[in-house]
């Protein structure tokens, strides 16, 4: 009996753990903020009518233009692109071990050079950013 209850609880714990990781990724907040994004990433090149982004839960399916990243340029709303991926760094500014200034300087910009200068080609640093990824840069 005890073992059965413990097994059920452990399975529930693991499932809940996975659900929390999945549903609290920054990309999940994008749908709530979709009206704040001024123009569709690809549509704006063909006509002048702003259209909302088709926001996906999968970061690989969201494509943002540099202009869209540029408006998220303050510590309260900080996006940056690093090596063609787009990250929401807002949550992380105050927790960056190197101090908040290093991240604040990336807000709204292409941070590839600064990131590479600090972390080189560290696979660990790259993969650690994965949870903060919200999309890819429109090339």
């Amino acid at each position, binding site marked *: *009996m005890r073992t059965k209850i413990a097994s059920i609880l452990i399975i529930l*714990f693991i499932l809940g753990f996975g659900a929390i990781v999945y549903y*609290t*990724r920054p990309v999940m907040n994008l749908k709530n903020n979709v009206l704040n994004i001024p123009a569709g990433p690809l549509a704006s090149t063909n006509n002048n009518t702003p259209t909302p982004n088709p926001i996906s839960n999968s970061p690989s399916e969201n494509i943002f233009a540099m202009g869209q990243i540029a408006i998220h340029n303050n510590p309260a709303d900080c996006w940056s692109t690093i090596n063609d991926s787009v990250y929401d760094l807002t949550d992380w500014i105050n*927790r960056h071990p190197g101090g908040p200034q290093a991240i604040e300087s990336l807000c709204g910009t292409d941070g590839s050079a600064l990131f590479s200068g600090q972390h080189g080609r560290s696979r660990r640093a790259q993969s650690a950013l994965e*949870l903060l990824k919200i999309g890819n840069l429109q090339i």
Partner: protein
Amino acid sequence: MKILRYAWVVLFLWFGLSQMFFPNNWTAFLPTWSGYMPIPAAMLVKLNGWFEIFAAIFLFLGIFTRPIAIILTAHLLIIAASAGGAIGVRDFILAMIGVALASVPADNWTMDFKAKKTKTDPTPDGASIQT
């Protein structure tokens, strides 16, 4: 021991639920070393809350009471060391409840106790089998 165990259950349930439902109130308490893991702050708080809720449920039912008490003691000591000051002292004292729980066998309201009793004395109420 029962009082200490249930007091700890209430403590971790309250903190765990609060972290699950109001993560933004807790992100300021994250230690700076958590920045080495670029996990979103709200996610980290919710995961911690989820862990505390389950640990409280295990403690409430009295399943793996001593191992859970040891884990929660370590958890509280890490928080105490990270927070420091008055909060650190408070959490250190709270952690001592875990030391007390882990240092004695599980009380007779726990499933651990019942499982152990069944194992050592499989007959109901300890009655000996008549042959």
